[in-house]
Structures are given as structure tokens and as C-alpha cells.
């Protein structure tokens, strides 16, 4: 299947979805006015990926900030990954990065970890 790559902008994150490597990367800012529209292609991609996933799926979230309407879409994205995991064809792990001192982003990762049934590693880095 095709990979999905979306270049980041001042308001939307860089998206890299690599099917054969089982690698999913989301980085930058996510503050679009219409988040549903922005995240729809990723959801569509996941639907396809779920049918023949790689044995191991690694999700790297390196977000600088996101708005509340993105927060809902990010949750939906994790929920889709959770159901892919539950099908038993792939192991899914999430690496949630936050910058030193950015407790808001750290807490956001912890909140998703509490809501979604996926293993999270919350990782502190000097610069995101």
C-alpha cells in the first residue's frame, strides 16, 4: 500500500505514515481551524493499513502544541490504532515526546495513555 506523507505548515503537523516499515510519525503544530478535515486522510490510511499491517507498528508523536479540536482527532487516531492492535496482527507502541519543562505536553500524553488501550512511552527531550 501507499505511504502517506503530508508536509507540515504553520498550522498543521508533518505526517509520515510508512506502511511497510510500520512507522507513523506526527510532528510539529496541530492548530488547524478544521481538524476533522485535516485528520481524515490519516484515518482513511489507517483503515487500509489495518488490513495488512507490519508486525510491529511504532507511533512517534512529536507535537509542539495542538488545539482542542485536534485533541479529539488525535484521540480518534489512537482509537483506530487500538482497534488495529486488538485484531492481533501487529504490536503497536506509542512514543510520546515532550520538551523539557513542557509539563502541559507531558500531561497530555499521560491523559491519552489513561484513555487509550495502547502502551505509551513518554519521553523527555531537549528539543522536539
Amino acid at each position: 500500500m501507499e505511504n502517506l506523507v503530508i508536509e507540515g505548515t504553520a498550522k498543521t503537523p508533518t505526517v509520515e505514515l510508512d506502511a511497510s516499515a510500520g512507522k507513523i510519525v506526527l510532528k510539529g503544530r496541530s492548530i488547524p481551524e478544521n481538524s476533522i478535515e485535516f485528520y481524515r486522510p490519516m484515518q482513511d490510511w489507517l483503515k487500509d493499513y489495518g488490513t495488512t499491517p507490519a508486525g510491529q507498528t511504532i507511533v512517534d508523536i512529536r507535537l509542539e502544541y495542538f488545539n482542542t479540536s485536534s485533541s479529539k482527532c488525535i484521540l480518534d487516531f489512537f482509537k483506530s490504532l487500538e482497534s488495529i492492535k486488538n485484531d492481533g496482527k501487529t504490536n503497536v507502541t506509542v512514543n510520546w515526546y515532550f520538551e523539557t519543562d513542557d509539563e502541559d505536553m507531558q500531561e497530555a500524553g499521560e491523559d491519552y495513555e489513561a484513555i487509550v488501550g495502547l502502551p505509551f512511552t513518554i519521553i523527555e527531550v531537549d528539543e522536539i
Partner: protein
Amino acid sequence: MAISDVYDFYKRMEDDHIILSFKGSFTEDLLTSILHIVEGKMEGLNVNTKKKKRVFNVLVESFQNLYHHIEEMAPNIGDSEKDKSAIIIVKYESNRFTIVTGNFVNSNRIPELRQKLEEVNALNDEALRELYRSKLENGGRTEKGTAGLGLIDIARKSKNKLDYEIIDVTESIGFFCLSVLID
């Protein structure tokens, strides 16, 4: 405003430590410009990363909150330009940022607005986090993708109580002012 008032206008902004103000129609392009300007100013002011992110977050959230709700909340003044008109002011003094917004609201929406604000103001950090988490998990979403999390998020990032005032413009129109401190 007479030309001779321009200096007074300037002076007033200077005395109030206003680093940015805009009155008019709110659009997404305007948000991009405002973020760009405020980010540039914060670079120059040596604001630490955490505060920078909080200011940025509150700006985005209060702006988009206005932007999304302006249509449903705005009264029909009959002048479409004025219907969507609002004001945003950013102040900076002694390492404290204040983001003030003002917009027209339909008077029949005021009780619900007050209730939301009071609910948020009654909660401490931990309770706000729990409310956010439970709304994120269980709350619905409107067609526009708003999740009803805006004010909660603004309060969480501000770490201060939300200061607000609703002024009666006419019997059916109010003007809602929200002032968010990030210190």
C-alpha cells in the same frame, strides 16, 4: 477620532502595555498573522519556552473559540460585517501576558455562557484536568469539530481564574469580554 487624538490613542496603548490589538472581522488568516507577530515579540522578550507555549495556546484557543462560536452566538445586528466583528488585545508587562477578547453575543446565550465560565472558575488545576479528560473521552463534537474544550483548555493554560464581563449593549445584544492572564 480627530487627528489630534491619535497621540492620546497611542499613549493609552503605551500606558496599558498593549503589544498588539486588532478590531474587525476574525478570519483564520488573521490568526496566522497574529501568531506570527506575537511569536516574534516573544522572541525579542526572552520569554521562556513554557510560557511561550501557554501564550500561544491561549491565543489560538481564544481566537478559534471566537471564530467558531461567533456565528451561532452573534446577534443579527443586520450589518454582516459588524456581526462578525470582534476585538483582540495582547498586553505584556513584567513578564505577564494578558489576552483580552471581546465580541457581541446574543442575549439569550448569555446564561449558558456564564454557567460555563463559572463552572471552569470553580475548579482547581487537578479538577480542570479531570474535566478535560472526561470531556475528551466522552464528549461529543459539533459539525465544526469543536469539542467544548476551549474554555477548559484556556483556564488550564492560564493557571488563573478567567476574568470576564458581559455588557448589555441593547436588550437583545451583549458584549462579552474575556481577559486571560498568563503569569
